[in-house]
Each structure stands twice: as C-alpha cells, then as structure tokens.
C-alpha cells in the first residue's frame, strides 16, 4: 500500500488535498471561452444542411446581407480563394471547412454568417437561401461497400470505392487454426454505438487578428492548444499566419473527454473571418449543433473466442467494420489508425490473436474522437469482456472463476501480449478478488439462484479490463509527426514559492492541485505555495495536451524529473552554505542536512533564496528547471468492476442495484480526485450501456440531436458508485503512477451489459448490443417468449 512521505501541510502524494482551482468555479468566476468578450467582437452563426447528401445548386446571400448588422456571409467559394476550404484531418484525410459543391452529412456547415450580435447572426443564417439537390445517402456502413454504392469521395485521387483502409495485427493463420481446432468457440457481432462526448460546455472559439502587429490571438475550447497552434500554422501558413504570431489560449474548459482535441470547421472559419475582417469573431456551438457533429465509437466487431471445454482461453479473433462518416478524422496517433484497439486481447494469458479492421465512408458526421478512452480501448475492452462472459455462459462456468483461471499472473509482468504490447504491471487476481469481497459476490450468487427459482430476473456482470494509456513513447506515437512527449517548467521564486507550467490542459481533472502535489512531493514546498498554469501557448512549454489519460504519465513524470533536477542543484547550494562537500549532504523532502550532523541543515526555501542572493561561485543563478518527458513505455491501468441488476420482465425496466469498481492505477497522487474521476467515468460508462446512442434514419437524418432525446444520465439514472483500489505501481514511471480517468468509461459498459444479459439468460437471451434500453429488453423478452 502507498504511504504518504509528506505532511498534510506540504501535501505531497497520497493526500486528499481539496482542489486549488475550485474557488473561481464556485463563485461564478471561471473563464470559459464563451465568457471572453473583446472590444468590437462579432458573432458567427452557421447555416447547416438539412440533408445528409446533396449537391449545393446555389447559395444566395442577398437577403441575409440586407439585414442591419449582418456584415458577411462566408461560403466555401470565398474560402477557396485562399485555399482554406479544405483542411487535413489528424489522420491525413481531408475535411471540408465549408463546401463548394457537395454536402456530406446532415447538419454540415454550409456557410457562416457574421454579425454584430448573436441574435442578428441567427436572423442572417435564416435569411440565407440555399438550393440543394438531395441525393440518396449511405447510412448503413455495410452497404457502403456494395458494388453499386455511389462513390462518396470522388475528390480523393485513386479512391475507387468507399473503403478507407484495412488494418490488421497478429497471426491470422495460427489464430484461425487454433479456433478451428478448439473444443468451444463462441461468436458474436458486437456493435458499439455512435455516441457523443456531450461535455456540458460545447465547443467554441474567439479569434482575434490584429492587422497591424499581424498577431493572431485565439481563445479555444482545446485540450491540446500547442498542437492546434502548429496545425493552424501548417494549414494557414500560406496566407501569412506564422507560428510565432499565433497565440492560443485554452482558458477554463467545461469538460473535454476527447471532444475538444480535433479542429472543427467552425474554428477555422472564425480564424479566417477575423483574418479577413480584422475584428474579433466569436463562434459558440449550440447544443444541437454539438451533438450532431463529431462522434465516438461506431465499431461493428465480429468476434470469435476459442477455448478448451473447461474454459482455458486459446485464441481470439475480431474483424471490425468502422463507420467513420465522410472523412477519417479520428483523433489518433499517426501510426495507429485504429488507436490502441489491439489491447483487445484483454487481461488474459493466451497465445493466438488476430485483429483486423476495415474503415468505410458513409454520409455521417466525421469524428472518431477518443471519448474518455485512450484511442479505441473502449471498443476493444467491450469486445473481449462480452466474449469472455459469453464463453463462461456457454460452458456453464462462473464468469469470475473463468477469469481467475485465465488471468495473466502477477509474476508474468512485464507481459508481452499476443498483439504486441508490453503490459507494465498488475495483480489481476487481487483486484478481482477485492471487488468480489466488496460486493459480497458469493451472497449475490446465492440470491440470484433463489430469485431465478422464483422466476425473477437478476443478473451479475463482471468486467476485468486492462487499459493502455499515456501516449507515448515518441518512437511510436505522434500527432501529425509531432512526438507525443509532454513537458513541465518550474520556476521557484526567491521567497520559495513556485510557478509551474505544463504542456497539458485540464478540463476538470484538477491539474492545478495534482501537479502542485507532485512538486510538493518532490521538493517539499507546500502545494499551497505552488501555482500551476496551462493552456497558453505563449507561456507554457510545448506539449501535446490532455487526453488518453496522458497527463500524469507524461507531464506528471516531467514535473517529477524537473523537480529532481532542482533538488540536485539545491544540493550543491546546500553544500556551499553548510561548508561541506556535496557528498556529505543528505536530502529528505524539503530539507538538506549534513550526514551524521542532522542539526546542520538548510530548508529548500533557504536554499532557493541563496540561489538568488548568495550564489556559489561559478553557479548559474536562479532556481528553475524544465523537462520534456518521453515515456519509455505506455502504462496499463486495470480494474475489476461488478454490477448487479434486476430486470422487470413486464416492462423491461432495468434497476442497477450495486456497482463496485476496483481500480488499479498504480500510485495515487490525490485519492479524492482519483475517486471523483472514477465516479464521473462510471456515469459516462453507464451512459452508452443503457441510454446513449446517436440514431439515424434511412435518409441520414439524426433522430436524437438534442438533450431532449439524447439521454445524458441525470443524478437519478446514475447509480451510487462504490469504489476502491489495489495499487501496483508502474515500474517505469518516475512516480509509479499510471493514469486513471478513462478506466471507468472503458470498464463499466461491459460490466453493465454482462449483468443485464446474465439477468435475461434464463429466457434464452444471449446477447444484446448497447445501449440496452428498457424497450430493447422488452422486445427481446417478447421475442424470446415467442420462440419458447
């Protein structure tokens, strides 16, 4: 177990320090992008397409421009003059900023209206007359590959059909052979629905170009401001926007979850508009614009799991069809078009695995964001955890027992997975056993048997997942070529107080507290004396931002190492002040003392003061350090979640009775924040499991594009979460930490799905795709009864 090295006043690792950032939010003094108001600021509103697939025959701006206060209507033709009507996606596909001729998904931006006031801009948008010629949209990704399907992207050279790419990992022949020879093979097609991050703050931008200084200031809802600055410079360099003149400020962010990693057309149009007009331009997305643009998941996975008749897993194969919408704008590292999907072999020890994926274009919004998930890990975990449960049911073995018998053992770490990862550490048996104890697993098993005897539907579902986070080692991971390191820069002031800046960007994770605690742990300077800043590209060191649970694994490590550089420098100063040689100085957090004479000592604050006032001869003054951390490996947080549900056979209603989540994220910096992150992630896990999913009709119309019908769980739907930990430190991270915030989003959906399906199993129901809604359950029950 982890024990704290520092006092609560210093507040290093392991203390549940209350958050330093709270005060401004509690008093309504947060500063989100929509709160930014610049002199002379104009407002931008989009005209969006009612059709999913259409030719634009004409756009008539006249009536809009006649409205008092409407200054401009920007079309794709206008942007084409500057070659800004298309932009590259993070995976080197291309996305329209504004269309010149064809609409590719419903609610796509058609043109943008700029006005002096938001209301007038809306009037202007309504007055724009657009003539469309609708075409039959391709909605079903399986039909996108039909011979006679229309070619959706004729603009792409060499593109002959709607297939984007094929990807595969593992030994196909050996895996297929193992499956063919196995005693038991379970198969299932599993769909993970298209969902939206739905952060309560939507996306937005305030862009302000100064024609005199040629500086471009951009306030942006961005999880990765530095990367975006570089992208803006690359995309708009030809019109004269140069990287040193671009300043991106990601102020307070109202939830990100991956949805604020991409560059959206609205950002580019606002930047283009301020560049042309020379006045600040604000664009804030409406909720209904937000929900129908961008998405996560949408994988159709054909899974096969093979085992011996007593349940020893032997091989896993998964063939996936990925619906990317009209362009592949997945926010993935360049060399990983399917993200970390190859973690799909899970927490189990077996030899053969093969994963392949084909991605297709459809007439849907692009996106593919890593929604609170380290790039497609949620899909991978759902596949293996559903299949392991299916296997347990098939051979009549307790699913906990089956898992315990197949887990990678503690002593097998570092473990080379069949698809090429090197898992750093874990104790899967201990984690699952802890979850079973906390729940009272055996008692629930008994209760279930009794309930089943009475004809009642009760289910217990388990998910024992392994995550892969913290991208990443720069030899493998980059975004548009930029290596995925991260950074920390520490300045300790003469009075011993500090300012530290990072290349990451909190969106609610509590970095201002967590990072201060890491520095307190390393330097012994109280957390309350340390200010943390992120998000301003003019002041923060370059970094790739916050997503994929990478802040602690990368920037957190950078902070520790930068601090250790300072401790080393301090040692020299302490030796000088105490008039002994450096070898005679001992460091214990916050204090240097002479070996064997502990009464002779200097505090870190005294040493810092000396670094500005009484500098040892020949030494560089000051007490500052920077570190750019390139991790040697990813980290592999894991967990065991167990869910108990009851299902009402008459109505299909599902009641989540208990949900126990044991996480192992290595050493913990702030237990309160970690627990809070787990709670939040669990609610985002139950969301797609039971409520959320973007639905389309055959014409490509989104059927649930507002919060009225896209059901984000409220406090009523969200169960009372029960959480706990096992701690297996990461052997390669300087703090032994792994990252946590995405584990619950990844781990919860299969636990819930497994529980509901377990409840329905006596009726002969063996699989349901999420979201498992009461009406889906009711339909399945009726169908099962008819069959019986």
């Amino acid at each position, binding site marked *: 177990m982890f024990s704290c090295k520092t006092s609560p006043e210093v507040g290093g690792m392991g203390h549940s320090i209350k958050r330093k950032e709270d005060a401004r939010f*509690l008093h309504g003094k947060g*500063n989100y992008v929509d709160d930014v108001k610049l002199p002379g600021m104009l407002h931008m509103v989009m005209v969006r397409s009612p059709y999913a697939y259409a030719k634009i025959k004409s756009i008539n701006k006249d009536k809009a421009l006649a409205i008092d206060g409407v200054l401009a209507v920007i079309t794709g033709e206008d942007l084409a003059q500057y070659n800004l009507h298309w932009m590259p996606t993070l995976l080197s596909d291309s996305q329209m900023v504004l269309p010149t001729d064809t609409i590719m998904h419903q609610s796509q931006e058609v043109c943008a209206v700029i006005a002096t006031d938001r209301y007038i801009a809306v009037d202007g948008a309504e007055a724009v007359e657009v003539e469309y010629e609708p075409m039959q949209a391709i909605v079903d990704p399986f039909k996108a590959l039909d011979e006679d399907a229309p070619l959706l992207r004729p603009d792409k050279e060499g593109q002959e059909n709607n297939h984007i790419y094929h990807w595969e990992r593992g030994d196909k022949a050996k895996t297929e052979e193992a499956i063919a020879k196995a005693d038991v093979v379970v198969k299932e097609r599993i769909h993970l629905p298209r969902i939206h991050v739905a952060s309560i703050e939507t996306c937005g931008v305030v862009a302000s170009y100064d024609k005199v200084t040629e500086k471009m200031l951009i306030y942006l809802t961005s999880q990765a401001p530095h990367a975006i600055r570089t992208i803006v410079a690359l995309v708009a360099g030809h019109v004269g926007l140069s990287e040193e003149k671009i300043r991106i400020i990601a102020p307070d962010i*109202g939830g990100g*979850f991956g949805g604020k990693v991409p560059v959206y057309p609205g950002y580019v149009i606002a930047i283009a508009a301020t560049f042309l007009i020379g006045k600040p331009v604000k664009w804030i997305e409406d909720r209904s614009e937000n929900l129908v643009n961008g998405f996560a998941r949408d994988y159709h996975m054909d899974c096969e799991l093979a085992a011996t008749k007593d349940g020893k897993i032997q091989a896993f194969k998964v063939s996936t069809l990925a619906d990317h919408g009209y362009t592949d704008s997945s926010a993935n590292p360049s060399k990983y078009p399917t993200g970390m999907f190859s973690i799909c072999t899970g927490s189990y020890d077996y030899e053969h695995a093969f994963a392949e994926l084909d991605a297709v274009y459809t007439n849907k919004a692009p996106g593919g964001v890593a929604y609170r998930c380290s790039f497609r890990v949620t899909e991978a975990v759902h596949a293996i955890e559903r299949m392991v449960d299916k296997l347990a049911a098939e051979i009549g073995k307790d699913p906990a027992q089956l898992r315990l018998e197949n887990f990678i053992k503690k002593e097998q770490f570092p473990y080379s997975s069949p698809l090429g990862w090197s898992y750093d550490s874990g104790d899967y048996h201990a984690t699952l056993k802890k979850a079973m104890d906390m729940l009272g697993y055996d008692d629930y098993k008994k209760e279930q048997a009794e309930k089943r005897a009475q004809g009642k539907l009760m289910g217990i579902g388990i998910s024992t997942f392994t995550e892969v986070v913290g991208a990443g080692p720069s030899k493998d991971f980059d975004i548009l070529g930029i290596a995925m390191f991260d950074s920390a820069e520490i300045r300790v002031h003469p009075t011993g107080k500090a300012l530290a800046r990072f290349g990451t960007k909190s969106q609610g994770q509590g970095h201002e507290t967590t990072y201060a605690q890491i520095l307190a742990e390393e330097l012994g300077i109280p957390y309350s004396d340390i200010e943390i800043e992120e998000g301003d590209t003019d002041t923060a060191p370059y970094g790739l931002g916050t997503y994929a649970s990478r802040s602690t694994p990368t920037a957190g490590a950078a902070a520790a190492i930068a601090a250790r550089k300072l401790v080393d420098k301090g040692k020299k100063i302490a030796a000088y002040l105490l008039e002994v040689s450096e070898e005679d100085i001992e460091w214990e957090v916050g204090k240097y003392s002479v070996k064997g004479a502990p009464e002779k000592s200097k505090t870190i604050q005294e040493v810092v003061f000396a670094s500005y006032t009484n500098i040892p001869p020949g030494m560089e003054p000051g007490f500052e350090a920077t570190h750019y951390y390139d991790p040697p490996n990813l980290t592999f947080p894991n967990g065991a979640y167990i869910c108990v549900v009851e299902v009402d056979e008459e109505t299909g209603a599902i009641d989540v009775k208990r949900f126990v989540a044991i996480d192992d994220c290595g050493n913990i910096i702030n237990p309160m924040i970690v627990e*809070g992150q787990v709670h939040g992630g669990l609610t985002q896990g139950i969301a797609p499991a039971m409520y959320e999913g973007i639905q389309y009709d055959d014409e490509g119309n989104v059927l649930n594009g507002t*919060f009225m019908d896209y059901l984000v769980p409220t406090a009523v739907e969200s169960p009372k979460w029960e959480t706990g930990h096992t701690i297996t430190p990461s052997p390669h991270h300087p703090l032994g930490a792994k990252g946590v915030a995405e584990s619950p989003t990844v781990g919860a959906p299969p636990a819930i799905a497994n529980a509901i399906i377990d409840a329905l199993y006596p009726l002969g129901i063996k699989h349901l795709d999420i979201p498992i809604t009461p009406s889906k359950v009711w339909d399945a029950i009726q169908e099962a009864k008819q069959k019986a």
Partner: protein
Amino acid sequence: MAKHNITMTINGQSVSAEVDSRLLLVHFIRENLDMTGTHIGCDTSNCGACTILLDGKSIKSCTYLAVRADGANITTIEGIAEDGTNHPLQQAFHDQHGLHCGFCTPGMIMRSIDLLKNNPDPTEEEIRWGISGNLCRCTGYNNIVKAVQQAAQEMKKEKETTV
C-alpha cells in the same frame, strides 16, 4: 424589433435597460450585465447550467425572456455569498469534491439552494430527483449528492443557532 424598458434587482443591485422583446434572460445576464457565472449548456431547457433564482425560485434563465423578468428580484451565483466567504453550498461542493470542470456548478448550486429551502432535510433519493433537471457530465453525481447533504446539515445548524 420592439424595445422594452425593464428594471430588476440582481444580486441586490437595481438595473435598468432597454431590451429587445426576444432577448433571453440568460443573455441579458451574461452579455448585458457581464455576469458570466450563469452558463449555457443546451438549447432545449434540459441541462440547467443557466439556473438562477427569480423571486427566490430556481428557474432556467435560458427559457425566460428578459422582459418577463421586469420587476423581479434575481440572484445568480455571483450573489449568494459576500466577497471572501462561501455559501454553505459552495463550501460543501468544495469539501466533497462536487465539481470537476465547474461548468454545471453554478446551476447545480442555484438549484440546490431552492431545493434545500423547500426541503431542508432531504433524503438521498429526494436530492437525486431534486437536481435531476441539471446535468453534470463530469462528476457522476455521487459527490454532488454528498455536497447537498453536507450543506443541508450546515444550514440546519446555522438556522438553529440564529433562532
């Protein structure tokens, strides 16, 4: 667009303005008065980020015309505590880690003030239903519920000592 002169009290201050008929109260507060603690999270009255108190009752200010608030007494998140102090709900959200990104927080707190006024000793179930018109995407609600429970206890104590 017809214009209307309106006057209201916001956080104890009287304000007058000439506004369009269609101006929403949330925009009046945010844009005209520059009080940006009240947020906007949706366009269908579902999220509650815009919740304020109007004549002591919590309302969603995105679904209320500014002209309709003529003569009203309004409290926003900026007006519930003296400078340098915390309302018991602000303190409780901090103590219980009831906020992550903070975007829903002002609305949650304003709603909870009304909830506790009408039901000073709510059960967990009553709190969950009581805040079910406010969405939070970050916290999973456990700690928001705990915060409201803590504030309820505090406010009861305060009342007992002032009586």
